[in-house]
């Protein structure tokens, strides 16, 4: 296992070099009459919301992470454009046989933006910082969600919080300046994949201390940020922070000329919040921004026709319709669940609503991840069979009544147009004689809290991978009882736990495959689709490979001066 990891890292590093080489030669070929890349260029990227803070420790939203990815680096990173884990601030890493002692060999000659040297001490300072965050608002699940996913708790857990466990993180040591050893209590599927998230970015210890990074107060709803999180984020990444203009909703970064990797071509990078999707598209057409995330599938064709560089990402996400069995006893009958699965015209919906490259899901794991099983029970669109199954279960036309919940005014990468999907599925269900009570609520707080508390009979939800592992999907839903699904199967939950802590990767993946087949047999919900989210750039912007996990860095971006 150790060997494979290192080899993988080496191989991907080589591939990266090749890739850049190709890209460069392409540029060389095509760019004779172009003025070529402009090293003074400013790139403006439209984001769907405003950042919450500049310290990704507190982040769980995509916008904050996107900005943080430009300023900070993590120990391990994703190879651009793929789900492969490669070296970042750590050139290589290994774990012992128990999967609890992880040694990271760090990159040499890296400095933080404030001139502080990057070394193992700095790594351990960061991990210890997260581990020792004080009880109170800093330990709120909305504030440090991913640390809590990673470690389960803190050195000093807040009292009265049953959701916090003994921390899995034990210690970090620095035997020499270029080696950091992280010890865990028990093996976990999150290691090292979760560390690609900017929440685990390494900050300058000097700046963290100088600007009181941990001094967050107030309520989790409205934290009062320390100066570090609003004015002084200090990392090792390709861009340095310049300003955050809250009136114009813009964050401006400038090139870090001392970046350890390939320094950015562009000199300034601006993130501008444009919450409305149509407005983002129009801003791009008008040349006011150079790119934005998650263009609506309805716009793909038009954008490409305008010469925009639209890059669909490989889908590592899932949209599903969940049954909440406790909410409606009818759903405890497998035949009813099967009937609903057969009633939904998933292919028709995918064709009409989802972008090119989307596919109907067969199970609760996207095919790009290991652990996806080629052999699971499937449920094709078949309204007659659905009617038959309902009749067998004792429900004649119009006798089964279900509350179907749908969110309003939201788009997610896995769900570009919930209203349309909902309308189609309601028609499908009515077609087989089910009476549907439509309940449409704002995404937060009503919708999410209602469906997660198990108040809906049927509802939509989805997931985009945080880190490339099938457990990030099935583990999120079926590792134990949750009101959202409303069923208990302790024997099944136990086998999920076994799979999660299996140190051997190959064994783990085959366990996932079995579990996936079993889940589809039991049918706790209907997996709907995997949707490629896209990122789009202006015609003169190239060089940013779309990442399936939305992990794009802009140091490779080229803005052709026109």
């Amino acid at each position, binding site marked *: 296992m150790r060997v494979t990891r290192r080899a993988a890292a080496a191989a991907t590093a080589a591939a990266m070099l090749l890739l850049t080489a190709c890209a460069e030669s392409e540029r060389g070929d095509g760019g004779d009459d172009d003025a070529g890349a402009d090293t003074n260029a400013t790139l*403006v990227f439209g984001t769907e919301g405003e950042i919450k803070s500049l310290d990704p420790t507190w982040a769980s939203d995509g916008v904050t992470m996107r900005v943080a990815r430009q300023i900070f680096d993590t120990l391990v990173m994703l190879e651009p454009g793929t789900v492969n884990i490669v070296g970042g601030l750590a050139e290589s890493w290994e774990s012992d046989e128990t999967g609890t002692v992880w040694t990271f060999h760090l990159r040499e000659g890296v400095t933080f933006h404030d001139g502080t040297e990057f070394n193992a001490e700095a790594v351990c300072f960061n991990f210890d910082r997260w581990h020792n965050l004080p009880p109170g608002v800093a330990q709120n699940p909305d504030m440090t969600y991913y640390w809590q996913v990673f470690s389960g708790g803190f050195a000093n857990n807040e009292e009265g919080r049953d959701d916090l466990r003994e921390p899995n993180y034990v210690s970090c040591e620095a035997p020499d300046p270029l080696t950091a050893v992280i010890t865990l209590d028990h093996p976990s599927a999150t290691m090292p994949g979760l560390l690609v998230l900017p929440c685990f970015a390494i900050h300058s210890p000097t700046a963290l201390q100088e600007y009181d990074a941990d001094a967050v107060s107030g309520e989790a709803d*409205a934290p009062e940020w320390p100066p570090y999180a609003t004015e002084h984020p200090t990392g090792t990444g390709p861009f340095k922070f310049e300003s955050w203009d*809250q009136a114009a909703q813009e964050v401006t970064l400038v090139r870090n000329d001392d970046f350890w990797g390939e320094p950015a071509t562009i000199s300034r990078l*601006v993130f501008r919040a444009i919450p409305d999707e149509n*407005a983002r598209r*129009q801003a791009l057409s*008008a040349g*006011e921004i150079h790119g934005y995330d998650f263009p609506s599938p309805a716009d793909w064709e038009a954008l490409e026709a305008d010469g925009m560089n639209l890059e669909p990402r490989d889908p590592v996400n899932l949209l599903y319709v969940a049954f909440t069995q406790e909410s409606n006893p009818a759903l405890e009958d497998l035949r009813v669940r099967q009937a609903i699965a057969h009633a939904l015209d998933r292919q028709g919906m995918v064709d009409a609503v989802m972008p090119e490259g989307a596919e109907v899901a067969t199970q609760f794991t996207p095919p790009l991840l290991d652990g996806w099983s080629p052999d699971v029970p499937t449920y094709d669109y078949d309204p007659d069979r659905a009617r038959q199954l309902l009749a067998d279960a004792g429900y004649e036309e119009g006798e089964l009544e279900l509350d179907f919940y749908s969110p309003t005014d939201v788009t997610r990468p896995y769900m570009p147009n919930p209203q349309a999907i909902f309308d189609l599925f309601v028609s499908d269900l009515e077609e087989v004689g089910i009476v549907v009570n439509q309940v449409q609520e*704002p*995404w937060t707080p009503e919708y999410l809290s209602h469906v997660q508390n198990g108040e809906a009979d049927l509802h939509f939800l989805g997931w985009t991978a945080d880190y490339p592992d099938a457990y990030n999907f099935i583990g999120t839903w079926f590792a134990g009882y949750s009101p959202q699904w409303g069923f208990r199967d302790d024997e099944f939950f136990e086998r999920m736990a076994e799979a999660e802590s299996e140190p051997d990767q190959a064994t783990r993946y085959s366990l996932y495959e079995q579990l996936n087949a079993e889940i589809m047999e039991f049918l706790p919900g209907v997996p709907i689709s995997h949707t490629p989210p896209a990122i789009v750039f202006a015609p003169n912007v190239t060089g940013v490979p779309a990442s399936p996990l939305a992990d794009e860095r802009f140091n490779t971006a080229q803005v052709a001066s026109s």
Partner: protein
Amino acid sequence: MARFIVRRLLQLIPTLFGLSILLFVWLRALPGGPETALLGERGTPEARAAIREQLGLDQPIYIQYIRYLRQLLELDFGTSTQTRRPVLEEFLTRFPGTLELAVVAMVIAIAAGIPLGYLAARRRGGMLDSLVVGGSMIGIATPVFFLAFVLKWIFGQNLGWLPTIGRQTPGINATHVTNLFVLDGILTREWDAAWDALVHLILPGVAVASIPFAVIVRMTRASVLEVLGEDYVRTAEAKGLTTRVIRGRHVLRNALLPVVTAIGLLAGALLSGAVLTETVFAFNGIGRFVYDAIRNADYPVLMGFISFIAFTFVMINLLVDISYSIIDPRVRVR
């Protein structure tokens, strides 16, 4: 004069009192009760208990009301569940944008409305008159946000004449002092920044101006018609004064008095317009913030906004009364 103002200020007290009761009832009527509305349903039981304590929900209703009144006086509307910052702070950051937009819209409405209304009245029943009257009726029948889309589509996207997004060109490196971007540009002598901000205001400004324009145009027209029929105009004509003098000194001046004094009252149209328009142009003002707040069930922001509107209107009424009493002393007698 002073007595009149004092009396008007005293009259404010029962009005504001009535308003605060309405707002209090409104907050209590929100789905899930005030604590859910203010916290969002993510609120932990502790946070919920804390806010119940803070609002005094276990206390008798009049004590709750007094607490609420105190918070209102302290301008404490809680924190936005979207941005997690205090509502007041959010409003203060965004208000300059809306103010700028409103001023530009008003300027457009007046600059176009008064001359057109005047001309229409001079040639009553003519081509221009029918156009102006018909146009203003269509303007009023058109949903403002649709007009905004059309303007944006034609002038922004198809013709490419004007920017359609935001308050300034991204990355323009402008210094902000007051957050009124045009004024900032002038104050700091960054002329290009001032120009840039001004150009960004034109399309949304025109959209917001549509209804005030329609109102002003018809008001001016009616008013001029009325004055033209007055005896003194005929007397002036009989005296052989030149048309120019008659128009300038008598007709326009007298006809514009009601128009000008009523302009302050168009604030409502401007605010409604801003709420419907800012989103279309991704313009970062109060209107767009409220639009997002609706979509995210951000009740603290909605409550703050409604309090803000109510208060603004009471104040505008007061100012108009006072200013009118200066122009027309007869009012003071009442």
